[in-house]
Each structure stands twice: as structure tokens, then as C-alpha cells.
């Protein structure tokens, strides 16, 4: 049985419109749950994540973050709690250590020890040394590095855009399971975008399907 806290919405959207890309009449995303946003390419999934990260603002309508409209929240404060990972991982100059720490540095948070960093690399299955140059990593390795970077920040809400798109099937299963476990342990809300319905069904408790910028279905997924 779920606690009442679990049913509180972390994000509520009302009459949200963005260009001709997205129109959401009403949507509530539950706190501390894993929610998948599925849909075809160009359906507006990434736009929705960017709206939640306040990277863009809607033309009309209101998005609430825990009852407060996003306009009333400082964007930078919000993004330090609600962290987004883009589909194509951004690798900054420097080595793996620098890339792991950069999110914490941007957010002005305390920096962890090398042991903790190595531990995080293990969680995402990245067998690399901290002083290796990050630019030489393969696409899949860069994606795992970007995931580890977000995990180190321990955000309240994770916004993951196709988090496993560059991983092969076996690595995808292993990494996704570890991310979900890690998020659950930290009491985080995970919202991830995927074009893969089997992946959504495997990891998400709630599945929101978007088609041509509008929500066509919201399903509870009791797979456990």
C-alpha cells in the first residue's frame, strides 16, 4: 500500500501550450514515482521535459512545482532540484573527474571524495579511471558518465531524456535497473522520456503517452 505522500503531485500542468508543439489540458505527475513519457519522435516529449526544467516557458497555461507556479520560482534554484539530462550527453572539457563534479560545482554543492566518484562510475558500469579524458569515451560511455553526474547531484526530480538511447540492450537493462534502484533509495522522482514502450513498461509506475503534442493516455503500471 502506498503512503499518502506518494500520491502528491510534484508537477501539475494546466492548459499548457507551447508553440504548435505541445498542448496539455491537465496533467499531474506524482511525487517519488517513476514516470515514463512515451511517444514517437517529434511528439513533444523533450519539449515537456524542458518545460518542467524551466528551460523554456509555455506560451500560456501554468505549470506548478509542488503547488507553486514555475513563474514564481527562481529558474536556477529549480534546476538545482529538478535536474535534466539531455538525450545527447554534454561532455565538458577536462577528465572524467571534472565531468562528474561539474554538476555539483554548477549547483554550488559540496564535492565528494574520489571513492564516491569511483563508486558512482561502478553503479553506471563505467570501468574507467577518473583522470582519463572524457572526450575520448564512446557514445554509450558518455551517456553513462552523464547519468553518474546527475546521480551525484542527488536531485529531488530527475528529468532523463532517452537515458539509454546510446546503450546496447544488456547494458541498458543493467544501468536502468541500477538508476531506478538508486532513485528509489534516495526518494527521488524520476521522469524519463523514451520511444520504447517495453522499456517504459519495465521501469515506470506511470506511463504518459503523447501523440502530436497532446496526451492520449495515462496508464498506471503495476509491474511489481
Amino acid at each position, binding site marked *: 500500500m502506498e503512503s499518502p505522500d506518494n500520491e502528491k503531485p510534484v508537477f501539475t500542468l494546466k492548459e499548457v501550450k507551447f508553440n504548435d508543439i505541445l498542448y496539455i489540458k491537465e496533467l499531474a505527475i506524482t511525487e517519488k514515482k517513476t514516470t515514463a513519457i512515451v511517444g514517437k519522435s517529434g511528439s513533444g516529449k523533450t519539449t515537456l521535459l524542458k518545460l518542467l526544467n*524551466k*528551460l523554456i516557458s509555455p506560451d500560456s497555461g501554468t505549470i506548478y512545482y509542488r503547488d507553486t507556479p514555475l513563474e514564481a520560482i527562481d529558474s536556477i534554484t529549480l534546476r538545482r532540484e529538478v535536474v535534466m539530462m*539531455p538525450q545527447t550527453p*554534454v561532455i565538458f572539457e577536462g577528465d572524467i573527474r571534472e565531468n562528474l563534479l561539474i554538476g555539483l560545482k554548477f*549547483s554550488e554543492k559540496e564535492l565528494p571524495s574520489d571513492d564516491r566518484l569511483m563508486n558512482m562510475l561502478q553503479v553506471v558500469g563505467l570501468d574507467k579511471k577518473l583522470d582519463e579524458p572524457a572526450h575520448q569515451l564512446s557514445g554509450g560511455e558518455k551517456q553513462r558518465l552523464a547519468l553518474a553526474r546527475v546521480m551525484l547531484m542527488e536531485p529531488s526530480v530527475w528529468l532523463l531524456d532517452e537515458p539509454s538511447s546510446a546503450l546496447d540492450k544488456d547494458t541498458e537493462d543493467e544501468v536502468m535497473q541500477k538508476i531506478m534502484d538508486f532513485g528509489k533509495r534516495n526518494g527521488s522522482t524520476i521522469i524519463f522520456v523514451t520511444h520504447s514502450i517495453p522499456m517504459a513498461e519495465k521501469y515506470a509506475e506511470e506511463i504518459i503517452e503523447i501523440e502530436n503534442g497532446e496526451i492520449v493516455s495515462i496508464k498506471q503500471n503495476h509491474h511489481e
Partner: protein
Amino acid sequence: MNKSGIVDIELWQLMAAYAYVIVLLVIVRIMGIKREKIIVMSSIRMTLQLIIAGYILIYLFNHPSFWFLILLFLLMEGFAINNTFKRVKVPLNRELKKIIAYSLGGGTTISLMYFLLVVIGSNTWNDPRYFIPIAGMLIGNSMTGISLGINRLIDSMRTERDRIEGALMLGATPKTASKDIVNKAFDASILPTINSMLGMGIVFLPGMMTGQILSGTSPLIAIKYQIAIMLGILGSVAFTVLIFVHRAYKVFFNKDAQLLLPEETVTKE
């Protein structure tokens, strides 16, 4: 050679210099490089500009006037600002133009004042003989520097959009998210001055120093002036570009720390 030992260039000698350009034009034409027009136009324009500048300088040296000097300085600044707008590859919006104008105006004025009052000496600061050439060198070099900086900043804000947004997603402020780009724009602006300093005295003798030596000044005095002016140029370029980049990056973000689209920033009036 005149009384002071300076070799004056006679008219026929100057004509010989033009003849050299005519030889160049013939070669360019034979080789099929269609650049005759620009070579002729730039030679004529340079000649006219320098003749006018020469007469203005003679007038100013003979009739020193503080207000005329200020007017000339403002004209130089205005020309430099306008020329900077033209050198940028994309149309600029009003906000960026304003930032360019006050960065160039502010950076060069402060550097010029420091140079004239402290380095050259307070008694001669408004002597046109010092004021005009030094102002010209500082403004000219700062104009080149800021033009390079603007182009680099605008280019990078477009091409490195994903990286900037990636930093914002991780909670970076616009200032932190664009720090690398701002630093690279600064590097691009200052690099020609640095390169010129590194080659000076080994690869080439700088124009001002050559001019002084040709006009009979001792090389030791010429060197002192050249060192001082190069440091002044370095300071002026750096100061101008620092003012610019530390204000200009903000134009690319809105109040919600969102990275604006290119059409919303650079070209939107």
C-alpha cells in the same frame, strides 16, 4: 635631406611608390586574379584619407584647441564604433550595439587618459602631437579586438547551444554556463595583439617605431615609446573586450535564465 637630417620624400619618389602598385596590378591581371578594383580603390582611399588627416594635423599642431581635440576624438570613437558594427557578420540588435558603443568608448577613453596623464606626463596630455596618434592607435587596435570578440561570442553562442543548455540543466547560472565561451571570445580578441608583441623586434619592427626612426629619432627613444604604446594597446584592447564580454553574454539569456534563440537575440530589434 633637410636641415634636421630627415630624408624628405620628393613627389617623384612618391609617384615611384604608386608605380610599384601599378606593377602589382599588371601581375594580378596577368594571373587572372580579379582584385584590380579593390587594390585601386583602397590605394586611392588611403591616399585621400591620409592627405586630409595630414592637413588636419598640421592645422591642429599650429592652432591647438582643446575642444577641437575632443571633437576629433569623438569622431574617431564614432567611426570606430560604426566600423565595428559593419565588421560583425550578422545584423546586431540595439542592446548589443549599445554594449559595443560603451565598451569601446569606455575602455579606450580610460586607457587613453591613463596613458596620457600617467605614462606620457600630465603637462602634455592635451598636446595634439601626443593625443591624436596615441588615441588613434588605442582606438584602432581596440576596434579590431572587439570585432573579433563579438564575432566569436555570437558564433559560439549559436554553435555551442547544447553545451550551454546542458550546463543550465545542471543548475548553472548563465554566467557560469557561458564562462568558457566568454573566455574564448576574450582570447580571440587579444590574440592578434599578443602575437604582434611576440614577433616585435625579431620578426618585424613596428610601424610607429619605424616611423620615428625614419624621421630621425634615436632608436632608444623610439623603443621606449613603442614599449609604452604596446602596453597601452594591450591594456586598451583587454579592457574594452572585458567590459564587452562581461555584459554582452547576458543579452543571450532572458530573466528566467533561459537561453534565447538566435533570432530572439542578435537580430531582433
